[in-house]
């Protein structure tokens, strides 16, 4: 393990050097975490526990330079059960699942996540507390407690690699302190450069999915300008719209509008889908950290499904879902 560590240290490029600057506050540690996730070259295995589910996953990540710009190359593969893999090639993300058509996402622009925790009012919604050093996957880890200041979000206990800031372990707790999600690396290497086989695999041409499965995602925050005729009139303070898209529904030939919100750590998405199946049902689901609330709304003769899904408490999701309403009723003047 020491050898691996040494190799990792000597093999790191600029990013690692930047990341290994000793961060002195928990906020800076979190910034380092985000940078490390995006900029370092690493491979490893981790376990993920959600509710009663335990999964093993493998991750490979590196940066490549294309036309003078650096791009992320990443693969996250589920090692248990149905083979599933996510491949990120720059701004394209493909999710392939055995027996299903691959889904491809394209980002039109990427918002750098710099200053997510040190700027803005992150500290109004979470209190950060440093905790004791620990060891995860054979590596020294710095612990950070992330305690929410209200009941609209969950708390976290994060273990960050002391050398690089990479997130090694994450535990999510609800407001009664129960563990609802766990992620933990079991092995991790920073090889400096990936093997040519790995690189080839990451750069491989992915199966083209039909147009209907390509989703253009816009990450520029323009929620106010979105041309849809609905809005979420209540979201917890601190959550900002970060991206939106409109894609074909999985269960009908309708378009589904999506708005994604994040407070820096947690995120949820609001989906609005007109319904034409005439089989309408509301559903509520909570598995581990993930809550999903689906409601049926009627506006005159029109029915539509509003679904809120994300790693937020169920009550928060419920409240957001019932706040979704047609825009023309409240903001017609804006148009």
């Amino acid at each position, binding site marked *: 393990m020491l050898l691996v560590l040494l190799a990792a240290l000597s093999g790191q490029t600029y990013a690692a050097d930047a990341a290994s600057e000793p961060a002195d506050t928990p906020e800076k540690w979190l910034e380092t975490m985000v940078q490390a996730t995006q900029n370092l070259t690493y491979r490893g295995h*981790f376990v993920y526990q959600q*509710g009663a589910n335990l999964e093993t996953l493998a991750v490979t990540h590196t940066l490549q330079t294309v036309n003078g710009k650096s791009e992320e190359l990443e693969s996250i593969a589920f090692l248990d059960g149905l083979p599933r893999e996510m491949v990120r090639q720059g701004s394209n993300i493909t999710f392939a*699942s055995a027996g299903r058509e691959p889904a491809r996402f394209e980002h039109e622009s990427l918002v750098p996540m710099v200053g997510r925790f040190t700027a803005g009012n992150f500290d109004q919604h979470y209190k950060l507390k440093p905790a004791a050093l620990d060891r995860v996957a054979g590596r020294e880890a710095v612990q950070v407690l992330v305690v929410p200041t209200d009941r609209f979000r969950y708390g976290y206990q994060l273990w960050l690699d002391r050398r690089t800031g990479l997130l090694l372990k994450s535990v999510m707790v609800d407001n009664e302190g129960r563990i609802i999600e766990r992620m933990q690396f079991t092995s991790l290497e920073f090889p400096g450069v990936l093997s040519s086989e790995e690189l080839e695999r990451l750069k491989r041409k992915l199966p083209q999915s039909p147009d209907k499965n390509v989703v253009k995602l816009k990450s520029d925050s323009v929620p106010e300008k979105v041309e849809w005729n609905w809005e979420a009139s209540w979201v917890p303070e601190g959550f900002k719209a970060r991206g939106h898209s409109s894609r074909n529904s*999985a269960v*009908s030939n309708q378009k589904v509008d999506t708005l994604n919100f994040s407070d820096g750590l947690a995120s949820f998405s609001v989906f609005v889908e007109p319904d034409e199946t005439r089989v309408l*049902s509301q559903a509520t689901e909570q598995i581990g950290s993930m809550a999903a609330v689906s409601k*049926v709304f009627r506006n005159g003769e029109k029915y539509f499904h509003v679904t809120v899904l994300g790693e937020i408490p169920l009550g928060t999701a419920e409240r957001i879902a019932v706040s979704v309403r047609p825009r023309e009723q409240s903001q017609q003047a804006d148009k």
Partner: protein
Amino acid sequence: MSEKHSHNHAQERLSESLSATMDGEAGEFELRRVLDNIGSDEDLRDKARRYQMMGDALRHETNEFMNIDLSAGIRDRLENEAAHSVSEKTPGTSRGALATVEQWWSKAGRVAVAASVALAVLLGVQNYNTSPDSVPLVTGVTDQTTLLQPVQIAQNGYGAAGIKAGYNSRQHDSITPEQLAQAQSVADRATKERFRAYALQHAEMSAMNSGQGILPFARLTTFESQ
């Protein structure tokens, strides 16, 4: 099973029942017959799919918040379709506007075929408060929904579970419990499929937006079935 010559007569009756069901005019007996057979009968499913496609195509004038409009013309179309689909062996409907719908069906057929024979069961539909003096929405709707109302949650199960009736169920009066259960199971499957698709998109957007690195994709396991 896909050969229907051996039981032509029964099939014809089934087709009629199906047509009536799709048209919302089936008696209880007819509905039962369709529901009993739809699961095992390939032909019948195929037919149901085509009926539903026609309905979809006819109603498919616009994408956004479109009206649920069962125009009178649908019935004529269904009758014509029923007439020649009895003699027609392979679906010949994959042209024009229907082609796109068909593509979609091949993808989501499992859920939607079943949905096509279920009745228009509206479970706990929420009306917007349309009064002009704009009561804040949350208070405006709590009489019908559930901020505080306990809901059934599938705590450890996989997939989605709908909230059962008994909950704003005035529209169920004319429907038997079995039919309701059938519709409910269809709706559950649609919900499950929807949650899965939504979860994927949520993961993707969160991967870009939430600063949690690998976690958003790991979370996808939540709504994956099997």
